[in-house]
């Protein structure tokens, strides 16, 4: 590691992030073709896109499960960090600037919602797929849940991309998720309570 830099994300954390990102973007693309009439018209091979969307969704969740199994204890430790909110986190969420750990409270919430949404996308997607063949799996609200998740995820993604690509104070964090390390002085400013090894 270059001097002055500290390691923020382990290889398995980065792998989990990028497997999730790649799967999500592919699913978003194929999903929008199914969802937006204008794109449906351009492509118009609904069966093909529907199969691609479904099977890539299955692959996405399987790949995530595989990385989680691979990560084992190391990812369990990450999950514990995401799970715990202290007084500073709550103050930070109320907009009263408080020192933060390796993850700030917003990043914790984003990660937790992303994980919960992956499960809900999976459940509602399976119900849509099997509901097309069997009325026992058909609920009037499945499509609403699947669409709603897409809209909220899209909002989270836009915020996430803004903070990681554009906002000057935070965009250095992209280095942490690509190369793994960030500048030590940046870390102490943004994540004062975090003590990198």
């Amino acid at each position, binding site marked *: 590691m270059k001097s002055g830099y500290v390691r923020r994300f382990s290889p398995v954390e980065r792998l989990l992030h990028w497997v999730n990102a790649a799967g999500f973007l592919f699913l978003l693309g194929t999903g929008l073709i*199914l*969802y*937006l*009439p204008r794109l*449906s*018209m351009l492509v*118009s*091979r*609904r*069966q*093909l896109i529907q199969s691609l969307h479904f099977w890539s969704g299955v692959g996405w969740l399987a790949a995530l499960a595989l990385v989680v199994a691979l990560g084992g204890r190391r990812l369990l430790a990450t*999950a514990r960090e*995401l*799970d*715990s*909110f*202290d*007084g500073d*986190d709550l*103050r930070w969420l109320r907009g009263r600037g408080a020192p933060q750990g390796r993850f700030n409270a917003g990043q*914790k*919430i984003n990660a*937790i*919602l992303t*994980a*919960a*949404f992956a*499960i*809900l996308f999976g*459940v*509602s997607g399976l*119900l*849509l797929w099997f*509901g*097309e*063949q*069997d*009325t*026992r799996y*058909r*609920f*009037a*609200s*499945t*499509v*609403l*849940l699947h669409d*709603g*998740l897409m809209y909220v995820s899209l909002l989270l993604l836009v915020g996430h991309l803004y903070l990681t690509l554009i906002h000057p104070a935070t965009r250095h964090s992209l280095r942490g998720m690509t190369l793994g390390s960030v500048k030590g002085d940046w870390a102490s400013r943004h994540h004062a309570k975090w003590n990198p090894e």
Partner: protein
Amino acid sequence: MDSPAAPEQEPRRYGRRLFLATVAGGISSLYWGKAAWDHVTGVISPVADAVSILPSGGWRIYTISGQMPQFDPSTWRLKIGGLVEQPVSLTYDELRSLPHVEQVSTFHCVTGWTVDNVRWGGVRLGHVLDRARPQASGHALRFVSMEVPYVDYLSMPQASLPDVMLAYEMDGKPLPKEHGAPVRLIIPEMYGYKNVKWLQGIDVVPQAVNGYWEDLGYDRNAWVGRSNGYGT
């Protein structure tokens, strides 16, 4: 207010609560989601049509083949045949010269989405059928789409419901390609898969049998809210 003197509390495990609450809320919404959404859109609809602010306008386009049928006004005909006294073949202009009707009705898809208040323009099915004079032995109609092999059937009583129509206009404009140009069947009482798009033929037949989706397990009598596992 947080007092600086207050002792720092132990970290709380809010993360797992948020996770579980989100998953539980999402899964339980399978039971309450649509009712809640209908309530919300009902409340704000005087201000804005909630569905129309969605980029899709609330519609999603289903096709069963690789290519949407192309409408060519010079070659397209609507053929009414089968058990009739006088087979009829209508050009697009001839269809449009029949008595024009408009209606506003709600479109329900069996997969759970709904588009409220669609303004359809076209002709009553009865006006078209009368020209061919169906025989007494014909108890049902077969609607044939240009999208092969899509067909579906209605019994005569179903086809005689007062708001059944052949729509060649939607929301004041010629029916768009993705909605079945030049003309589609509209039967608001039934789910969308009975509302055959890209119509090219109507045959009077002895009885209704399975259409395209019914062969795949959907109900022949696709009453909204009373079929396909809903309300039963």
